[in-house]
C-alpha cells in the first residue's frame, strides 16, 4: 500500500462564539495518492470546512495535518501559501477565474508565481494544460466568452498548472449540467488513476460519489464512514 498523500489526526475546527460552533470534529483521515476520494453528507455537515482544512485554506483549532510526515498546522500564513502553491490544486463550485485575464493567462498565473518555468515555457505549458482539458483553440478567450463547463475546465487546468500532488474540489460540478458534469468527473478520475494524483472532491451528487474510489461520509462535523469502493 502506498503512503498517504495527506494524513489528518484529530483535526478539529471550532468557530469562536457564544456558544462556539464546531465545524469539523476530531477527523482522522488518510488521503491516498492515485485515488479519487469523495466527501459526502448533508448540507452544513462540515464537508467544505474539512476540505478547506485539508487544503490549508483554513487553520484547525486542534489536531494535526501531515504531509510527508511534516505537521503543517504550525505553519505561518505565507508558509501555508507556499505549500498550496507547490503541492495543492483547487477547483471550486464557481470557476473563480480572474475576469480580466484570458483562459491562457488564468492558467499561466500559478506557473508564473511558482517561477520554475519562464517566458515561452510558461505559455507552452499553459497551452498544453488547456489542450489536455479539451480547450485547444479557446486559449485567448476571456472567461465571459466561455460556457460554464469550459470555465470549469479552465479552472481545472489552472489547478493542474503547478503539477499538484493533491487536487481539491469543492462541489466542482455544482454549477454544471449533466454532460459537463460527467466530463469534469472523467477528468478527475483520470487525474487520479492515470497520473497518480490524490483527488478529493466535496459533492452532493451521489452519482459522482459512486464513481469515487473512497467515499467519506460526514454528519454534524464528524466523519461517520470511510468506504473503499470497487
Amino acid at each position, binding site marked *: 500500500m502506498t503512503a498517504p498523500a495527506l494524513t489528518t489526526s484529530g483535526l478539529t475546527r471550532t468557530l469562536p462564539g457564544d456558544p462556539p460552533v464546531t465545524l469539523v470534529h476530531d477527523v482522522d483521515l488518510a488521503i491516498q495518492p492515485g485515488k479519487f476520494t469523495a466527501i459526502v453528507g448533508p448540507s452544513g455537515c462540515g464537508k467544505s*470546512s474539512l476540505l478547506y482544512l485539508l487544503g490549508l485554506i483554513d487553520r484547525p483549532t486542534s489536531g494535526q495535518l501531515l504531509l510527508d510526515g511534516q505537521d503543517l498546522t504550525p505553519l505561518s500564513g505565507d508558509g501555508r501559501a507556499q505549500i498550496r502553491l507547490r503541492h495543492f490544486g483547487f477547483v471550486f463550485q464557481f470557476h473563480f477565474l480572474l475576469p480580466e485575464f484570458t483562459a491562457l493567462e488564468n492558467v499561466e498565473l500559478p506557473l508564473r*508565481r511558482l517561477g520554475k518555468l519562464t517566458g515561452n515555457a510558461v505559455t507552452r505549458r499553459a497551452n498544453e494544460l488547456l489542450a489536455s482539458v479539451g480547450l485547444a483553440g479557446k486559449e485567448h478567450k476571456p472567461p465571459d466568452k466561455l460556457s460554464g463547463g469550459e470555465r470549469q475546465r479552465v479552472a481545472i487546468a489552472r489547478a493542474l498548472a503547478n503539477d499538484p500532488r493533491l487536487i481539491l474540489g469543492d462541489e466542482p460540478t455544482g454549477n454544471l449540467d449533466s454532460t459537463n458534469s460527467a466530463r469534469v468527473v472523467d477528468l478527475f478520475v483520470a487525474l487520479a488513476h492515470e497520473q497518480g494524483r490524490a483527488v478529493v472532491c466535496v459533492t452532493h451528487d451521489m452519482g459522482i460519489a459512486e464513481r469515487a474510489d473512497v467515499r467519506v461520509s460526514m454528519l454534524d462535523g464528524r466523519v461517520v464512514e470511510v468506504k473503499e469502493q470497487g
Partner: protein
Amino acid sequence: MVNATAASGATRSLRIVGLVKKGNTMLGQSSGYMLLREAQSLLNRPFIINRIGVRLTDPYAAEPVAHALEQRYAYKAESWQERSSDFLALLVTRNVIMYAVVSAILLVASFGIYTAVSNSVADKRRDIAILRSIGFSQGDLQLVFVLEGLALAVAGVLLGWALGTGLMAILGSLRFPVSGEEQRVPLDRSTRQYLIAAIASLLSGTIAAWLPARKAARVDPVDILRGAI
C-alpha cells in the same frame, strides 16, 4: 543735462550719458553713477570714499565674502542678504505658505489614490481569496495593490507635468506693467522642480496605496470562499 545739488547747497550741471536698470525699482530710482572725483568735489569730501560695492560672480557667496572682508579690513561689510533680511524673511514666509498649500493638494490627491485602491481592494476581495488559495503570499498581494497605486501616481505625475508645463507657458506669456515697465511672472522651469513634484507624488501615492494593500493582504480566503462576506 541735470542739475545735481549736494546737502551743502553746492550745485553742478551733469550730462546724462546713459540709463542703468538695476532690476530693483527702489534702488533704481534713488541712485546713479558719476565720476568719483566729480562726486567728491560736489560733496566737498576730496579723497574720501564712504562705501564700496563689490559685484560677485556668485551672488549667493555674498555672506562669506562680506565676512572675510570684514575680518581682513576691520570695516563693516554687509551682504545683500543682511541688508534685505526683512524682505528675505517675507519670501521665506511666502514659500512656507506655498509649500503648505502644495502639501494640502498632495494630501487630497493621496486620499484620492487611497480611495481608488481601497475600492479596488473591496471589489477584488473574491479575486484576492482565489489568489491566496492558489498560493500567492501576503507580500505578493500587497505588491499588486501598491503597484496599482504607483501606476495611478505615475499617471498623475505625467498628467501633472503636462498640465504644469501648459500652465507655466500661459503664465509666462502674461505681462504686467510695473513702474512703467513690462514685467513677467518669475517662473522656475528647472528639471529640479519637475523631479521634486514627481518624487513627492510617487512617495505619497505609494504610501496611500500601501495602507489598503496591507488590508488586502490580510484577507482570509476562507471567509470569502465560505460566502460569509
